[in-house]
């Protein structure tokens, strides 16, 4: 079974001009996922869904704007984090707080139906716990490091992990 990266988020250019909203992208994506799963019954296959734009430049603009937003929000986050650490030097509290924030957002997305909920068989938790442990170590250690040293130097050290640490399909 060949597993290809599911394209759950269509490029911005494929959405109608009026609704570049989060919710619209998610509901279109979830509809497509449901159609795919129902066609193949119990065996779930992830198919590279969504045809690419014939006009390459429009999807490049979409990718460019996502990348720009990604860079922008990362910079803002790091600056806010350091500002908070400067006046409230409690890195363990802050890292826990950030994880709570992320969890709250995702629970909100799942309950409002803006993103398809994952199905969790029992053995999944067994696979998830070591991942969660290493994520905790990575996140908390980074926050402690930001507290102790300048943000720029910590990032110079972090640049050295070239391996894409993003959870994604191989």
């Amino acid at each position: 079974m060949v597993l290809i990266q599911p394209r759950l988020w269509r490029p911005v250019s494929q959405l109608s001009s009026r609704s570049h909203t989060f919710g619209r992208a998610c509901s279109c994506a979830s509809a497509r996922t449901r159609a795919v799963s129902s066609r193949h019954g119990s065996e779930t296959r992830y198919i590279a869904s969504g045809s690419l734009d014939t006009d390459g430049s429009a999807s490049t603009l979409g990718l460019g704007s996502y990348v720009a937003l990604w860079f922008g929000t990362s910079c803002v986050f790091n600056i806010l984090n350091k500002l908070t650490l400067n006046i409230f030097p409690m890195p363990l509290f802050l890292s826990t707080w950030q994880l709570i924030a992320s969890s709250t957002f995702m629970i909100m997305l799942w309950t409002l139906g803006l993103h398809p909920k994952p199905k969790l068989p029992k053995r999944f938790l067994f696979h998830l716990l070591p991942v969660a442990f290493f994520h905790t170590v990575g996140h908390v250690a980074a926050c402690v490091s930001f507290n102790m040293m300048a943000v720029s130097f910590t990032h110079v050290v972090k640049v050295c992990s070239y391996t894409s640490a993003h959870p994604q399909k191989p």
Partner: protein
Amino acid sequence: MSLLPFCEAAELTRDIVCSYSGEVASSLVCIILGVLVAAHQEVTFSWIGTGYAMASNLGMVLRGLYSRRCLQGFEGMDGINLFGLISLSSLIFCIPLSLLFESHAWPQAASAAVAALGSEAAMWQLLVAGGVFYHLYNQLSYMVLYQGISPVTFSVGNTMKRVAIIVTSVALFKNPVSLLSWVGSAAAVFGTYWYSAAAWRVRQQLAQ
């Protein structure tokens, strides 16, 4: 918890690093020298802090290794869902850790912070903004990934993102960074790209 992914990665790394590839060796030397030079010039440098940063690297790499198994064969499991589940289950480890090691200092630090900011509302605003942007930047990184770019391109983008963070933080916090420090940081970034290209080539050779 199986040690298999860790052993496989360790073996592969050993094969790459111990291969008699001049490129791999040079790129590693470039990274190490770059970081050392940047560290030497860094006013706020501390060994413990650097140790924590390296631990963070290790943690994230191991997370990436183990998370690939989580994505195989589970219905509805994509990157951002997995990230949400990881965040939720990380709280199992994080909440006890922070309560155990830091909670004694919270009241005093909180009142000092409120005094520094002027009002409790400002403190909450700062915290909420931090949380919102933390989630947003992770969400956007998955949205970038889903545009269909390859993992290698994404890694390049990730490194460039760190460069952007370094530049903006130096610009805004105005921490003293000498020219030699910039040279060292640039060498570390360049060495990282060089190592990933060289390691890829060695991997291709080993696969034959």
